[in-house]
């Protein structure tokens, strides 16, 4: 791989995002707005907000980055730009890391804004170190980016790419402990929940909100990072210099 090419791709993705004000708003403002909505809904029962709020901090970066990456990389595949890049001195890893770096950076900003507002303004109680929330959010975002890259190989149109959202992301949201604590799920679903990466991201956020210990958080982050690496590997396998 080449740092020059990786940097070029990351920089280019960021310039594209800067141009696209609506996507930028979705990345940075929407998570905060939804947290505020949730806070309003549970205005009279802050204990529920304290339980669901951290889970949402884990879900947003994953959800949004999955959506944005699957559509943007699909565009690269269908517009011929990926094919052009493959005729140039670019390796697959440069492409993957460039995207992961750009969206990881966006995720860091997103996490900083979301945490500042939910903890600072909306009064979400966090026992653990707040900066670690940011680390978890970045790991989540990279996971979303990696999975988005992977599924984009199986879509022919942007419309199809968006359909992966209910198929890949929503089941994880249902089983991650947001609606029902994971250990109270029926046996089989609890087992399935253990196999899904978002569960560990939400666990990490819940540990951070309920305890000052960081050991379990790091263990969860490691699992999320492992899933992200595996997804990047799968994504790399779908990026072929030579195609039919």
């Amino acid at each position, binding site marked *: 791989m080449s740092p020059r090419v990786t940097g070029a791709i990351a920089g280019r993705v960021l310039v594209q995002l800067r141009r*696209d004000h609506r996507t930028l708003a979705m990345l940075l403002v929407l998570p905060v707005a939804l947290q505020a909505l949730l806070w309003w809904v549970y205005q009279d029962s802050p204990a529920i907000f304290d339980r669901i709020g951290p889970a949402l901090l884990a879900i947003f970066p994953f959800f949004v980055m999955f959506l944005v990456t699957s559509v943007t990389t699909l565009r690269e595949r269908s517009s011929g730009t990926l094919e*052009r890049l493959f005729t140039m001195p670019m390796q697959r890893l440069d492409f993957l890391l460039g995207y992961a770096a750009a969206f990881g950076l966006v995720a860091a900003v997103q996490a900083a804004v979301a945490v500042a507002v939910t903890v600072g303004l909306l009064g979400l109680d966090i026992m653990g170190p707040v900066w670690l929330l940011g680390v978890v959010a970045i790991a989540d975002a990279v996971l979303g980016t990696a999975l988005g890259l992977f599924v984009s190989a199986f879509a022919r149109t942007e419309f199809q790419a968006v359909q992966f959202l209910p198929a890949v992301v929503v089941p994880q949201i249902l089983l991650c402990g947001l609606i029902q604590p994971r250990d109270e799920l029926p046996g089989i679903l609890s087992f399935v929940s253990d196999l899904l990466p978002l569960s560990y991201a939400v666990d990490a956020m819940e540990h951070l909100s309920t305890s000052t210990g960081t050991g379990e958080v790091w263990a969860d982050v490691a699992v999320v990072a492992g899933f992200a690496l595996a997804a990047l590997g799968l994504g790399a396998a779908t990026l*072929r210099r030579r195609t039919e």
Partner: protein
Amino acid sequence: MMAAMGGAHARPVIETSGLTVVRGGNTVLEGLDLRIGSGVTGLLGPSGCGKSTLLRSVVGVQRIESGTVTVLGEPGGTAPLRDRVGYMTQESSVYDDLSVTENLRFFARVLGVDAGAIDPVVATVDLERQRDQVVRNLSGGQRSRVGLAVALLGDPDLLVLDEPTVGLDPVLRRDLWDLFHRLAEDGTAVLISSHVMDEADRCDQLLLMREGRMLAHDTPAAVKEAAGADDIESAFLALVESGEDAA
């Protein structure tokens, strides 16, 4: 005059041997043996005849069933060629949401070409006034010239252009063909596909293609003479019909 430098007898720029490509169960190219020299070579044929597949094989992004492609003495698509071959697909292959210069700056970085190379290529494709416009807001012809400008970055030894002149106005088309010949005179081999037969006379060498096979490969004048036709369209028809008689 140009025909002399386009001769396929010198060391070929592109050489294919038994090149076979299968897509979706259909054989698109079947055992193609080709030697393409310097100068401007036009690859002409109806849509769907395998032109793009051949060009993609040359730049190394096409999965090949069997056979070999050699470009500038190296196996097609290998690392030593990746900053020596400029390529443009039919879709122009540029980012719609970036400006002309942002596109060029990005591809220049990927190629490892100095940013100083950007202004000259913008001038070459005559987009100086549009340089800060977002590609999405450009006309189809301007967009395709952005794609061409990217292909020109780093002074490649070979340019592979898939239908770069389709849909352009006649003045622009003439200007682009003049540009291709200027580049060829400076030593860049140019391989251009087109489905518009009247572009044939602008090429030094002509490849007439139909259904994955070459009907003819010679100078435009020689192709017409051999087929006993006055224009390339008639020559194409004559070659198809004589081929069908033989079969």
